[in-house]
């Protein structure tokens, strides 16, 4: 700790930080632009000038940039000094010279850091009467709007996009007063984190284009704390609603998980909520009728009650809330409740749960991944399955730079200096994968192997680390050199981190990863100074994959058992909840099950291939329209709150399932379901702590979802009737659908939209952190449900065979693989149709041309797909991107044969347009 004096008041500060950060940590108001808590200082904007004095006697002082000055012990500074204040007001005046006076039509208005800082710096009147510099804007694709005239050249955008997120297609162009932030030519901003530009930009240069299309001021949005349901990371989000439709999603700070940044799937996928595919009304088909008929909400409840009177089976879902899965199981009984994911995933998740309870290992949160000094990524294309983890892995590479900077005694917040020093020095990132990935640019090595060979390699690595781990048979010299080099890097690291996933649906892969972690644990126990646990995590495909697996431990059977029962017709009805079963099993198996003739009740948000077969199709709430609990890849339970109430036809699945009386308005609240369940099951007892009490946090008042200046409350429904309608009541949570109540900032799990006097932008979050970039004050971070056991388990035996025959692997895409977000128009504009991907050798052997069609046949399935030939792919592998259309389970079984479909230039041309969109650099030239 160091002591500094600011305007005569002493503060205890961290001397490793700079003055700006420490002043903000102390809650002082000091304007800034270019500095960002995650990106450090470059001293570009000169806005945070303060007066620094050499000692007590020095009355004159010098002006310094707070962000570029260490908060060293004994520093004496003044923020309020007249010269410093004048300096800042002149800096803002010159930054604002070419800034247009367009706040009323600017999307940033009302939550603009530039507005806040201009006010704070006292630049209230403009004096510059001359011609402003103007720019041409670019079309940057479906996500990001561009209005360069508003730019104040703080360089935050390129520092985030290029330096932090690894983007390559945004640059600072030009110089002096003509600096232009854009692409070299118009086109889609490719990086998976481009949406953060809207939050990183202190003004309205980069804006959320989807939000602009149905724009509402920040203060007119109704917001509630939510959890992104796009994958299993569990990023915290703040969705906003107005007039009954969802308008946008922004990041909500969570210290351990997403921090300041979320991926573009999470940000732009929300529009699926208003998509044409939405099931808006209950639909019923009588017997064998072909056409659905709409039902009123009451008729739907009656029909549901009538159909579920007898022996009913229920199939849950890893993309539904924990409450809905519990309610379904309670409704149908444990013996009739089945997993909502494939059997292979079921098996994988059993292994993952074991690893989460294994002592001596830990499941790193996102911030812990960032701190790792050696990362091994196995098989999972992490950028496309759990993008936020990939962003963390990218930061982990910078730990080598941290070491260099410490040696050279350069403070870590000196961003430009540290990067200049490090150049291309990075901590090891080893990727073992069937194909090249978006992290290859920061990887120290990428080993392209098909799945069986990956498992074989992992076994060899485990053996090289700890000879007690079983040595795989049939290894050769190449393997040994490779495995011992990987082993050596993992052993040398202080915080090695293993990242894999269950996309390959291979329990053997999960076991092999766990074995490597166990070997490292053994090694560190005996040979290393580092005794801290070994980091091992598995990316989860869906928001509640792990939640469903945990629930199944307390009762439930795998999906195949449900399909058998359906095929044999031994049930009166089947409820399939928020689940497209055609994505969970092969079409043949599904068709057999459906042939059993059991009446099918499906509850879902969106129409899909599967629920068209239902007899009764009931509309379900999305994550934004219900309260719910989600369990992420770490086993962390988090609450999402209802942002707004949907139409009366749409109900949360748990509301429908827990309502026994059709006349009842709705069923039991999510809170009651959760409390009862947590009390009955020890493993879930932490869940009773998860949510703050419904009333009484602040006297008897609730916390408002609407801001204190929310407008139009009495006029919003005037087109329907002139009476002031009663506000919706929320009986299930501590939040109110109102602007009244106490702006509750005490519990961060209830704080969706931070605001503090003079801080209207998202930068106001620093007012609620214990220190900058630190934990939220009195913040709820969720509850970890998997408890480490005390006894270590032995290595898992795996039959590690090496395979040279042609195998198929499934490709994931950030934009398209998630079924819900894939229906958002902006995401659709970035997504691809199904395709196959092969290497050059295979292409030559089968006579397949670049972008031609390939015919893929297995024992159980056949499909024709456009093909991309790339360099970075394991030999004897074919990658298939199913785009939720191709029956992937049919292609994974038995021998695969490939055949070129005779070339027709027309289909080459049409698939070429699609492949222009694929973000890989190693595709072979068209002529090849």
């Amino acid at each position, binding site marked *: 700790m160091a002591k500094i004096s600011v305007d005569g008041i002493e503060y205890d500060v961290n001397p490793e930080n700079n003055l700006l950060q420490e002043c903000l940590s102390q809650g002082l108001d000091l304007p800034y632009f270019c500095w960002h808590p995650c990106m450090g200082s470059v001293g570009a904007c000169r806005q945070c000038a303060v007066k620094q004095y050499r000692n007590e006697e020095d009355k004159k002082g010098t002006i310094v940039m707070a962000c570029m000055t260490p908060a060293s012990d004994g520093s004496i500074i003044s923020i309020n000094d007249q010269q410093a204040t004048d300096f800042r007001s002149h800096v803002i005046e010159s930054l604002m010279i070419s800034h247009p006076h367009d706040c009323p039509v600017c999307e940033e208005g009302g939550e603009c850091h530039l507005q806040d800082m201009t006010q704070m710096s006292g630049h209230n009147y403009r004096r510059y009467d001359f011609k402003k510099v103007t720019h041409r804007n670019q079309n940057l694709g479906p996500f990001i709007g561009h209005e360069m005239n508003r730019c104040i050249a703080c360089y935050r955008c390129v520092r985030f996009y290029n330096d932090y997120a690894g983007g390559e297609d*945004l640059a600072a162009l030009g*110089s002096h007063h003509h600096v232009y932030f854009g692409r070299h*030519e118009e086109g889609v901003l490719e990086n998976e984190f481009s949406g953060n530009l809207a939050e990183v930009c202190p003004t309205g240069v980069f804006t959320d284009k989807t939000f602009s299309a149905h724009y509402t001021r920040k203060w007119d949005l109704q917001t509630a704390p939510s959890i992104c349901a796009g994958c299993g990371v569990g990023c915290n989000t703040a969705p906003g609603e107005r007039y009954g439709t969802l308008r946008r999603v922004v990041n909500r700070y969570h210290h351990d998980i997403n921090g300041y940044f979320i991926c573009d799937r999470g940000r732009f996928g929300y529009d699926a909520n208003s998509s044409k595919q939405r099931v808006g009304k209950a639909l019923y088909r009588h017997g064998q009728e072909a056409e659905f008929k709409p039902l009123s909400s009451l008729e739907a409840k009656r029909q549901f009650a009538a159909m579920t009177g007898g022996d009913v089976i229920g199939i849950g879902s890893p993309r539904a809330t924990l409450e809905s899965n519990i309610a379904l199981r309670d409704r149908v009984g444990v013996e009739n409740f089945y997993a909502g994911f494939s059997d292979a995933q079921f098996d994988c998740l059993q292994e993952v749960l074991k690893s989460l309870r294994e002592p001596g290992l830990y499941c790193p949160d996102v911030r812990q991944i960032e701190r790792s000094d050696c990362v091994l990524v196995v098989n999972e294309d992490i950028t496309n399955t759990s993008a936020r983890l990939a962003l963390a892995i990218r930061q982990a590479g910078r730990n080598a730079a941290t070491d260099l900077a410490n040696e050279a005694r350069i403070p870590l917040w000196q961003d430009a200096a540290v990067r200049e020093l490090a150049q291309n020095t990075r901590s090891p990132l080893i990727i073992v994968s069937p194909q090249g990935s978006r992290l290859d640019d920061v990887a120290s090595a990428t080993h392209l192997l098909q799945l069986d060979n990956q498992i074989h390699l992992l076994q060899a690595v485990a053996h090289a680390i700890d000879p007690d781990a079983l040595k795989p048979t049939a290894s050769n010299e190449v393997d040994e050199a490779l495995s011992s080099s990987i082993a050596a890097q993992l052993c040398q690291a202080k915080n090695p981190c293993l990242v894999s996933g269950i996309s390959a649906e291979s329990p053997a892969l999960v076991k092999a990863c766990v074995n490597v972690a166990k070997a490292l644990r053994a090694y560190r126990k005996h040979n290393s100074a580092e005794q801290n646990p070994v980091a091992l995590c598995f990316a989860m495909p869906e928001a509640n994959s792990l939640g469903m697996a945990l629930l199944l431990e307390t009762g439930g059977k795998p999906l195949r058992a449900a399909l058998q029962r359906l095929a044999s017709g031994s049930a009166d009805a089947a409820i399939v909840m928020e689940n497209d079963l055609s994505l969970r099993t092969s079409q043949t198996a599904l068709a057999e099950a459906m042939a059993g003739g059991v009446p099918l009740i499906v509850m879902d948000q969106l129409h899909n291939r599967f629920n068209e077969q239902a007899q009764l199709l009931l509309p379900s709430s999305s994550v934004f329209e219900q309260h719910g609990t989600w369990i992420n890849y770490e086993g962390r339970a988090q609450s999402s709150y209802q942002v707004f109430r949907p139409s009366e036809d749409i109900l949360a699945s748990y509301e429908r399932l827990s309502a026994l009386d059709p006349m009842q308005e709705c069923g039991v609240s999510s809170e009651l379901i959760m409390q009862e369940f947590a009390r009955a099951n020890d493993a879930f007892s932490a869940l009773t702590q998860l949510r703050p009490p419904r009333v009484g946090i602040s006297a008897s008042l609730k916390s408002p979802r609407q801001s204190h200046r929310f407008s139009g409350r009495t006029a919003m429904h005037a087109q329907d009737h002139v009476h002031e309608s009663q506000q919706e009541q929320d009986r299930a949570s501590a939040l109110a659908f109102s602007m009244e109540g106490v702006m509750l900032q005490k519990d961060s799990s209830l704080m969706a939209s931070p605001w503090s006097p003079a801080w209207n932008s998202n930068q106001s979050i620093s007012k609620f952190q214990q220190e900058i970039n630190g934990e939220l004050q009195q913040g709820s971070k969720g509850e970890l449900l998997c408890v480490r056991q005390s006894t270590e388990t032995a290595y898992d035996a795996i039959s590690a065979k090496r395979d040279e025959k042609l195998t198929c692997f499934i490709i994931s895409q950030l934009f398209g693989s998630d079924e819900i977000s894939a229906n958002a128009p902006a995401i659709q504009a970035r997504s691809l149709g199904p395709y196959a991907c092969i290497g050059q050798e295979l292409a030559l052997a089968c006579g397949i041309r670049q972008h031609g069609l390939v015919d893929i046949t297995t024992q159980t399935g056949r499909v024709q797909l456009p093909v991309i030939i790339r360099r970075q792919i394991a030999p004897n592998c074919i990658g298939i991107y199913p785009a939720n259309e191709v029956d992937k389970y049919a292609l994974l079984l038995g021998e695969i044969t490939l055949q070129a479909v005779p070339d027709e230039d027309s289909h080459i041309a049409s698939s070429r347009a*699609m492949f222009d*969109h694929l973000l890989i650099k190693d595709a072979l030239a068209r002529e090849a």
Partner: protein
Amino acid sequence: MTNSQLIASTAPRVQARTLTEQEVHDIEHELTLYPDKRAVGLEALKIVQKHQGWVSDESLLAVANFLEMSAHELDGVATFFNLIFRQPVGRKVMLFCNSVSCYIMGCEQIKAHISERLGIDYGETTADGQFTLIPVPCLGDCDRAPVMLMDGEQQRNLSIEKINEILAESAERE
């Protein structure tokens, strides 16, 4: 409608041209002098400009591909420097100093004369593609002001007569 039909194409509007043998040779020489490829960006742009007169989008992409770097980043370098030309210039580029010493020595009248003779202002090129006039801050020859740099040759002690001579000489050589 399948997703593929909704795609906004990201296909680049221009394709890289092929670098000439001489350009490749010159850039490869520079590569031996720097620790990594990206560092050669500026030199490579200068080489291309020397041979082509300016750096077109096609040339920029070619250099970026050759140096295995992002075209966006390279364009950041190219547009930062005033004297890397990202649009066509005349066969002769007049880098005319309008800084303080030259100003004292009357460069304004001389510039007015050039503009009148050629019909171009700063930043413009004559219709016949012969001359481009560009202001520069200082050419380091203040004791012989006013000066300009043309065709790699410093023209000192400029006067209206000297400008006429230079233009006449250029016309002769054509």
